[in-house]
């Protein structure tokens, strides 16, 4: 039996809220946005059909407050809630609450989220489904003597990880026995403060693994597909910054093995919806189960670009109870896609978040380019949330074409008002190891040990010097060269007036 969704509430903000609103538009579903006081004029609020304020700027007083989200859903008459990623997306209690309130939670069942969210339970599930696991402790390691014994049997270096973990919190690499006790207790403390759960466990530390993950899609009727992999090895502080599909080292045979493993744990956990099974791949190409992310991933567009499948639309169709319209043999990987996460951060200053208003914002376009942006010109970048402002995705017939399109797009991307990571990405695109596909999760620290992400030619330096001299001269003498600027301002305001007139007609003059 299927339940058509006519109204959907998006319990998120930024680019992912915009992405989901767009899927709603494509499907003729009425989109309901929620917003905090800091987001009153945010892009997702402007695009949605209906919007509800859910309180003060800090996320623990707004986007994370289950009662407020549920209340907005009730008031608006939404049948379903899409949690996006982050915030409440992997919160089993919230999924349960939706189930109890008769709202469709777009994601797996609450018990699946709870099972896979606990790293130890997830490892046990993976083991049962026959997935390869990194050598480690499958019990919590809070007893020092017992833990040390396990660490010795695994062999140093070992990785201490939080059972409730994520985002690198409660994680420690321990190189030798001497630091073991200290690392174990500090990881447990960090896990306790971050997740309210001090359980930690141990894993063999792989020196230079790749991070490769499988996108899965499962309906409510027991059908489950894998949609190919994404390689997300380029990470900073355990956060992905560049992702691509396919992985440069993938072969059809390898993909089938990894895909079957991913489908295996999905079936073993009763998975429904879109999800991601993450693996680490060692230098000898052995792969090991890492974890399952029970939600849409930030990097989902690279899969969409190479498979032609709209994952958000699929999520909604699955939530409506529809059967998957595709079979595994229908999934073809076409070309290559790369995503660069554009953050409002200053790469020259330790990636410090950069806040403020976007004075200018021009996004690239042209063949093979997709920009999933959460902001527009004039948008404020608040301090309260993740500083990612957009994702730039380039598609090409192969990795070389995708990379050259990405370079072109990064050069066309103009942002002023806040610092961004655009220049950082441009540098990576020229990195010889990146070009050769020689990736590992230690790529950035190995290639850029001093955190300097620039390589300038003397010609560029000279151009920059000339540009600042002309800028200074023009500002001091207040030169309005020609009247190009004036003409542009005039045409812009004409356009604005026309737009407003059209807008008034469209909304029946009610605003």
């Amino acid at each position, binding site marked *: 039996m299927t339940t058509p969704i006519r109204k959907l509430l998006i319990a998120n903000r930024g680019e992912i809220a915009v992405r989901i609103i767009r899927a709603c538009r494509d499907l003729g579903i009425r989109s309901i946005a929620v917003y905090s006081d800091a987001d009153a004029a945010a892009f997702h609020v402007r695009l949605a059909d209906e919007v509800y304020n859910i309180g003060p700027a800090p996320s623990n007083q707004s986007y994370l407050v289950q009662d407020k989200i549920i209340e907005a859903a009730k008031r608006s008459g939404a049948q379903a809630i899409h949690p996006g990623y982050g915030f409440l997306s992997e919160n089993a209690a919230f999924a349960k609450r939706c189930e109890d309130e008769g709202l469709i939670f777009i994601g797996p069942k609450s018990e699946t989220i709870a099972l896979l969210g606990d790293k130890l339970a997830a490892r046990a599930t993976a083991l049962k489904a026959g997935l390869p696991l990194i050598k480690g402790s499958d019990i919590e390691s809070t007893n020092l003597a017992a833990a040390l014994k396990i660490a010795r049997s695994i062999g140093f270096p070992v990785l201490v990880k939080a059972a409730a973990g994520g985002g690198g919190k409660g994680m420690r690499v321990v190189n030798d026995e001497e630091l073991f006790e200290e690392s174990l207790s500090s990881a447990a403390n960090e896990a306790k403060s971050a997740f309210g759960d001090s359980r930690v466990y141990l894993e063999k530390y792989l020196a230079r693994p790749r991070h490769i993950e499988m996108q899965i899609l499962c309906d409510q009727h027991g059908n489950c597909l894998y949609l190919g992999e994404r390689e997300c090895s380029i990470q900073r502080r355990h956060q992905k910054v560049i992702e691509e599909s396919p992985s440069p080292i993938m072969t059809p045979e390898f993909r089938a093995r990894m895909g079957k493993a991913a489908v295996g744990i999905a079936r073993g956990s009763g998975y429904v919806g879109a999800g991601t099974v993450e693996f680490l791949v060692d230098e000898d190409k052995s792969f090991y189960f890492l974890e399952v992310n029970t939600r849409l991933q930030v990097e989902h567009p690279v899969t969409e670009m190479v498979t032609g499948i709209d994952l958000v639309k699929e999520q909604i169709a699955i939530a409506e109870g529809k059967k998957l319209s595709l079979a595994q043999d229908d999934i073809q990987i076409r070309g290559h896609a790369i995503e660069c996460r554009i953050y409002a951060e200053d*790469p*020259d*200053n*330790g990636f*410090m*978040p*950069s*806040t403020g208003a976007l*004075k*200018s914002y021009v996004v690239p376009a042209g063949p093979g380019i997709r920009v999933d942006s959460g902001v527009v010109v004039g948008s404020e970048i608040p*301090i*309260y*949330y*993740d*500083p990612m402002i957009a994702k730039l995705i380039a598609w090409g017939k192969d990795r070389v074409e995708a990379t050259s399109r990405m*370079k072109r797009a*990064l*050069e066309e*991307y*103009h*942002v*002023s008002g806040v*610092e961004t990571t*655009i*220049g950082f990405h*441009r*540098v990576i695109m020229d990195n010889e190891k990146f070009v050769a596909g020689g990736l590992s999760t230690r790529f950035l620290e190995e290639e850029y040990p001093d955190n300097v992400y*620039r390589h*300038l030619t*003397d010609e*560029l*330096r*000279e*151009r*920059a*010097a*000339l*540009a*600042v*001299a*002309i*800028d*200074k*001269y*023009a500002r001091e*003498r207040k*030169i*309005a*060269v*020609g009247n*190009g*600027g004036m003409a*542009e301002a005039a045409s812009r305001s004409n356009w604005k007036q026309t737009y407003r007139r059209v807008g008034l007609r469209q909304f029946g003059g009610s605003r």
Partner: protein
Amino acid sequence: MSRYHVVVDDKEFDITLEYRSEQFVATVNGRRYVVTQTPLTEGRSLLLIDNESLEVDVHSHNGGGERRVFMAGVEILTSIEDYAVAQMRKAAGISHVRTDDMLNAPMPGLVVDIKVKSGDKVAKGQPLIVVEAMKMENIIKAKHAGVIKAVRVQAGTSVEKGDILLEFE
């Protein structure tokens, strides 16, 4: 004619500019260029350097003579001053590195750790203060070598963007 001294990394540029009939005639370390500038939005302009088209975004960075230039997908840090000022400064034996006497909070946040105390000698790049914002710990490092005169905040202090964190001698 105006004359400027611009530094990009370790390269110095002696630039002269003359503005006539809506064009700049420029020399950069003796090389001559004809440049037209069309302002776009705030800070951005289109430069035609001997007909080579270049869209640039120039904005001041940390106040003073530091400018950040964004062009061709790269961000470039520069510093500019009037040529005459640069000459006097050089004659006085002062390096071109601008030294701030204050360290301001680059963002609002919570001071979680202070790694220096008054009287400490610090080297360029040395961690000074850790500020937590957006749930991330941000280490504020010394932009130049110097001696700490006073620390104006304590661990646990909430700061607004621009608040004085510490003073240099």
